[in-house]
């Protein structure tokens, strides 16, 4: 038995546990050499995997990480470099979307679905779809709300498309940039087990916006209560994906900073949802539109809310 035990592969304990047992031990973090700085992965800083990774099977993670390490080696001015960001198949994209809509508690979206193969297809096209869905649904909902009014004249409101596009693309790209910068800065002060590359953060944000697409379509229903319930529901779903992704990255930090970071993530996400609902969708009337001549003076009828 002793011989068999000696021959068995020894699993290294989690680095956090090792450090907790021996706080004064010197630590070395070995990073693989990368040409492009933004592709750094905290690969070798996690010798013992996170608890959720054990459920994935270590061989698969090993193989994908090794393969991913050899992947992005084209210089950035060639077309092949950008092709590495679109190296996904249909079923992979669908799996990632499914993972963002049905978040499993305890499972990290990045580790489970992205697995060192972040893609730009999902974030870009989900944002594009969301832009047009919000614009079209807003237009439709305004049309149905104001349908009975005698002075209403339908307008396509095409300007709102460009406003929606600016907002959503700015959110999906600038917030991950800020978050990545912040995490890098904290990483230099506190050794974190988990760190994400910029593309992985963009990926998580992009896929987490997917649940807003059916929500925007359902927001056509002109009931205030229904709209707010829908918004809370979708906010919980996509917010939980984000929280479960970023909590392992900040939990080793100062307690207040960790909570503030996660709170800021959720707050920005909620702001996006509330802002879109308020700007693109007119408030539904509380009473049914009466066919009789409106009692109040004409100015309040003509001025629409947007």
């Amino acid at each position, binding site marked *: 038995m002793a011989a068999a035990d000696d021959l068995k592969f020894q699993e290294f304990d989690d680095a956090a546990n090792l450090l907790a047992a021996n706080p004064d031990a010197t630590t070395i973090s070995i990073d693989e050499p990368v040409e492009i700085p933004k592709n750094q992965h905290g690969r070798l800083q996690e010798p013992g995997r996170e608890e959720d990774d054990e459920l994935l099977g270590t061989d698969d993670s090993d193989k994908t990480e090794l393969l991913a390490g050899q992947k992005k080696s084209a210089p950035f001015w060639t077309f092949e470099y950008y092709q590495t960001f679109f190296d996904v*198949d*249909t079923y992979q994209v669908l799996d990632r979307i499914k993972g963002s809509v049905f978040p499993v508690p305890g499972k990290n979206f990045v580790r489970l679905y992205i697995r060192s193969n972040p893609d730009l*297809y999902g974030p870009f096209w989900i944002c*594009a779809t969301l832009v*047009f869905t919000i614009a079209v649904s807003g237009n439709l909902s305004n049309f149905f709300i104001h349908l009975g009014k005698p002075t209403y004249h339908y*307008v*396509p409101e095409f*300007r709102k498309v460009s406003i929606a596009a600016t907002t959503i693309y700015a959110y999906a790209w600038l917030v991950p940039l800020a978050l990545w910068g912040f995490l890098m800065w904290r990483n230099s002060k506190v050794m974190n087990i988990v760190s994400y590359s910029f593309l992985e953060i963009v990926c998580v944000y992009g896929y987490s916006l997917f649940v807003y697409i059916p929500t925007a379509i359902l927001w056509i229903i002109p009931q205030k209560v229904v709209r707010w319930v829908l918004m809370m529901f979708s906010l919980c779903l996509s917010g939980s994906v984000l929280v479960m992704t970023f909590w392992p990255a900040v939990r080793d930090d100062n307690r207040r900073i960790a909570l503030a970071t996660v709170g800021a993530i959720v707050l920005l996400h909620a702001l996006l949802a509330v802002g879109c609902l308020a700007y693109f969708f007119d408030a539904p009337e509380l009473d049914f539109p009466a066919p009789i001549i409106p009692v109040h003076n004409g100015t309040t009828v003509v001025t629409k809310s947007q």
Partner: protein
Amino acid sequence: MGPGGCRPSHRSGPDRRHAARAPPCWRGGAGGQPPLALPWAPWRCVTRQPAPRVVMTYFVHVARVANMAAAEGSSAGGPLFAGLADVSISEDIPVEGEITVPVGSHSPDEDYSTLDEPVRDTIMRDLKAVGKKFVHVMYPKKSSALLRDWDLWGPLVLCVSLALMLQGGSADSKDDGGPQFAEVFVIIWFGAVVITLNSKLLGGTISFFQSLCVLGYCVLPLTVAMLVCRLVLLAGSGTVSFIIRLIVVVAMFGWSTLASTAFLADSQPPNRKALVVYPIFLFYFVISWMILTFTPQ
């Protein structure tokens, strides 16, 4: 099998190595066996289009015909043309001559005579090419004429006419109206460029301008829908006219998407087809939405 006009370059040695290897782009399609690589006809993967195009068609055809001959020969025992092992045809040297494929007359005489022809012939030739492509779009079969001889005249005409018909819908204030000319123009061209880039990044083998050409030509059904919508709106703008417009726009949207998918989906790797078709769907959906929501003054 020595075609006239063939000028082989003399390379020694390395070509023997190629004899046993399958070409890197071999996908193992219908047959299962990689094509026999002959020493004087090393395989090149025909994914890019060097100029002139007809050279590559001819070259691949020569290799294929020679391949069939050699396959028959090897079944009889031993390759037929082993003595020419150190001779190969480089693709840098244009090989001219006509064997069989009628890719269009490219003999030297006719190239010069287009200079002397009347202007009417020149214009009619281009117009006929554009017209033929319109017919291809309306009845999409899997022909390669649209892909091979791409041109951007048709998309330009369609885009300009659609933008002219769409611009300046009614508006209470400046901000609320329909799309302006520049907006429609930018959406169509920028959208087509983005979709082309997307399909190329996902590993598609179609060239940039071919894809732009196909996407532009497939706007034709939607332009027809816009014409019909404007005519229906002249008659009135009630519920009935809206339903007619809705049906027409939905039908033309489906036609556009199917037509462009028929041309573009084949050039994609099979496990990514849906990823390429979805942006095309979104593109034509946006254009259809702009057409459907057009309201006149």
